[in-house]
């Protein structure tokens, strides 16, 4: 596995701290070179993406390499965030993978129509989560180095 010269930036938008913990661990296990950023609602996510996030203040604001987006979040949920991202010319190329507990067909259809790049139901087992992270890494982060 080649590592990128610049560490890849993965943004995880999820309000559930447990899931955030699990995802962080999974990435550390699977893709240690990535920089993970966590935001906890849609407002924060959009601020981050527009370079107004406190963590990113003053820094250049690169478009992340991957966004993992939960659908059910406070303030501004994932559906609305997805719509805003995919209708923003600067952000519409951002790989956005929906990662949610919902297995509802309506949600799947909605996200597909709005241009989500993938739709993943949060796995029940940590081993499955590792598989997910691995395939995401392969598909979105390390692809240019393959």
């Amino acid at each position: 596995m080649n590592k990128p010269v610049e560490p890849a930036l993965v943004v995880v938008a999820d309000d559930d701290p447990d899931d955030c913990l699990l995802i962080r661990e999974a990435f550390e296990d699977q893709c240690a070179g990535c920089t993970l950023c966590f935001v906890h609602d849609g407002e924060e996510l959009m601020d981050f993406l527009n370079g107004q996030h406190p963590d990113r203040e003053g820094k250049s604001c690169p478009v992340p390499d991957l966004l993992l987006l939960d659908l059910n979040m406070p303030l501004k949920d994932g559906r609305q965030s997805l719509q805003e991202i995919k209708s923003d010319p600067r952000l519409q190329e951002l790989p956005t993978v929906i990662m949610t507990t919902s297995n509802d067909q309506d949600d799947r259809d909605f996200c597909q129509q709005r241009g989500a790049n993938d739709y993943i139901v949060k796995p029940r087992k940590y081993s499955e989560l590792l598989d997910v992270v691995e395939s995401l890494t392969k598909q979105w982060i390390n692809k240019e180095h393959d």
Partner: protein
Amino acid sequence: MVNALKRPAFWYCLTLALAISLGSVGLIILIDFSISGPESVGRLALRPGGGLVALALCASFLALLLRYRWLATGLGFGVIALASVLTLVPRFSSSDWLDIAALNPLLLLVILLISLSGLAAMHLSRGWFVGLVCGPIVFGLGLLSVLSHWQPGLSAMGLGTITESTLVLSPLCMLAGLILPFLYSIYHSKVQFYSTGLLVLGILGILVTTLSWHALRLQSGERLIERAESLAGQLEASANSAFDVKLALIRRLAERWELLDGVPPESFWKQEVSSYLRDFPDLRLITILNRQHSPLRTESRTLDYRGWLETFLSDRQTRDWLEHTIESRTAHLSAPLQDYQNRYHAAIAVPITPGPGYSWSVLAVVDLQTVYENLTAHYDGALHVRVYHQDQAVFDSAPDIPPAQESLLASPRITPHHDSERRIEVYTRKGTLPSGELYLPPVVLFTGLGLSFLVMLSHFFWRQSEQRARSLAELNDVLNQHLEDERDLRTTNETLSRERDQFFALSPDMFCIVDLNSHFFELNETFVQTLGYTRDQLLGSSYMKLVHAEDHEKITQAVQSLTEGHEVKDLLIRVLDSEGNPHWLQINATLSADDLIYVVARDTTEQLAIEEKLRENETLLKLAERLALLGGWVVDLSTGKSVWSDAVCDIHELPRGQAPDVEDAINFYVDEHREQIRAAVLLCAETGIPFDEELQIKTAKGNLRWVRAIGHAVQDDEGKVVKLQGAFQDITATHQAMEQIRRYAERQSIIFESITDAFFTLDADWRFTYVNRKSEELLHKTRKELIGRSIWEMFPAAIGSEFDDQYRHAVETGESVSFEAYYAPLDNWLEVSAYPSDEGLAVYYRSIRERKEAQWKFEEAMAELERSNRELQDFAFVASHDLQEPLRKIQAFSDRLMTKSDQFGPSEQDYLSRMQSAAGRMQQLIEDLLSYSRVTTRAKPMALCHTDDVLAGVLQDLDTAITREQAHIKVQPLPDLVGDATQLRQVFQNLISNAIKFHAPDTPPEISVYAEEVSDSGWTLVVQDRGIGFDPRYTQKLFHPFQRLHSREGYAGTGIGMAIVKKILDRHSAEITVASAPGEGTTFRIRFRSSPAQQEQSKDE
């Protein structure tokens, strides 16, 4: 018509006038020529050649106008030939006759053009064009010719050989030029212009004119000659007197000198002679001659005359004349002698004897020319004079006219003296005349022609109008005749049609006229009324529509026989009236000449019916008398005798034929009725007031009977009652029936009173006619209050309410209505049924307040239940959904923990795996609960599903399990059904996967899926397996959630599958039953019921 005729008529008359003029002018010329010869004194001779051509032209014009085509053609060519000959031949050969007849070449051109136009008009289809070209040329030539007379420059253009012929020809020529363009239309005109009258009138008029012209010419000639002669006479007279004067003058001179004895002294002579010469300008020289004729003294105006004297005296003849003069001793005039200037002079000699022995003479020379010039100085300039002295022309007033051009008018000889002879000639220039004589005749000619033309034109129009008047008169006669005929016809027609209409309208028979195409043409009122149609419905429509289908053949045959000339008599057919009832018509029909069929029909239906009825009635009457016990009676008041019919006797149970008198009859009545009948009979007998009583009698056999006695009086002419007669009927049965009805009515009333429903009736004006007791209770009003009062008056709050609408609807439509409504003033819910009838409305109703209240409570409870159900479902969904989250965390972290299991002891690892297993079961339970609740939360609308497709999909999904378990599944085609495809799929999935799952370990599953009891109302799906089965006691548990019939160890599952199936099938209104026994397999039967719409559809198919 008149306007259209005007122009052709004008040109026709003009052409005719021209033709006649040419003819008559030509004729006159020829006649004149034949009488007077080529030269005629005093007038101009017109050339016979021109006359001939004019005649020929006249003939050809007339032939053209009379439409003798070939004659006209021949003449036309003849004219051309004649004119050519007369023009050309004189050019090449010379003869007097030919010269006389010769024509001007220009005239030949004109004649050619005229003839060609005429020929073209007759023979060429575009002949008018030739006329149009030639006309203007001819006209122009004529005009130039006229002008040539006054314009010397145009003299070559003259058409005539002489002035007069030019003056006559040119206007004719112009006229011809005008006409030529119209020859074609005249010739081809359809109108017959020609009439003998017109021609005769034209010939007469123009002949008279031409004769006048000729006469005028002749007269002018005569007058000219007279003028010439008188001129000559005058001249002679004045010449004589002039010479006499001269002679006398000279003699007086000579006599004076005689007295002087010898030669007068020179001075005296000179004085004397000079004064003579001065006073008389025509004296040129005076001399005295001696005996030897030598001049002694001579005095002259100029010396020239002395020369002349010498010449004169030297002439021998002159000397002889002098001798003679001297001897005769009288004055003499000598012969003329020319001087060197060619002027003639003559000498007057007078002998004188101045002394004895002297024979001298005085000689005076006279200038003859001056003398005559003085004499003729004031004469008519048109006439010229020439004077001869002894055959010497001494004077000519127009010496420049050559002799050949002179035309001599008069030449009297004058002998004034024996030795001097004089002659005077009066002449004019040949070919011309003084203007008076020249212009007057042509003016007269053309004026006459114009007048003749106008006369012809007016004659033509007069004749036209005559003809028109005549034809109008004829037309008028014809019209009058027609009018008369028409009037007669109309009168006849009116009479006929009035009679026919009356007959038609009043005829009691049905009458109609139909055509051969089976359409009604006319019908009378009876026809229309009998059949109940309107006239408009029938007129023009086919009568076959009316004829009863079984009689069509008869009609067809009847029409056939009519067309073959037969009549139709007493044909009986059936015809349908407007209500479809058949009428028997007896038909007579004939075919008229105008192919119309006249039909008389008589409706014999009633007649037949009446006959039938009469027969029936006779029977019935007898029957009725017997059955109805109705009879008649008569009482003769004068005798008191009465006659009873058999029936009356029977009613009284008396032997038939008996007739008791009035008093006995009255005694049959029971005591309480006897006086009543007696009074009625007496009253009737006295006043004639009829009676009709229902009373009771006791018969001869003692039976009580109710009878109806009807009587009325028979009055004689004076109004006195003579008889009573009437009917008598046993009405015992009726009476009993009435009693019965009365009892029924009472009973009904009791029933109405006793029924629990409230009841009232209304009449047609909404007034209460009956109200039962229950009604009184419900309405809170007594019967007394209500009866006779309007419902709207008593219950005004009902106006405009449901009650109002429903009652009115019932009354208007005649349909009964049922409804529930709340009546606020009574605070009551009522269930009402209203039945309309002829009398009004009958209304049953009852209070349903209790039922309504119960219903409301029930509905509230249902709503509550619904709400709680919904909450429950929502709860189940939300709970199960939200429960998953923490569970997933438990699973995830325990899994995370499991990855670090090498740090635990064996018992910790066991706990961990048990925990994971429990979490997994919980996850399954939650998911099952979710799918159970999703049956309602995720329900989709019902649609037509292809059951076979759904099943095939399920089998495909289960393929892995089927292969694994080596299941054998028999599937038969299944009917379609209406449902939620996703859920039906789940039903199949659960049933078949259960069937695969629950099989004995050693036997592979064997499953059948098929349909049973397929009908319009639905079908039954059967899923059968030969699996392990179960105890039928647990059948009910099977469909409850989380109920398992088999151990978890043997068979996986939470026990939700069948619960879901049940729930789905409940939603589809399908009924599931199960038959099973342990070890014998399980059979599920699901009964799907078709919805009504689906049933319809399947019926259509």
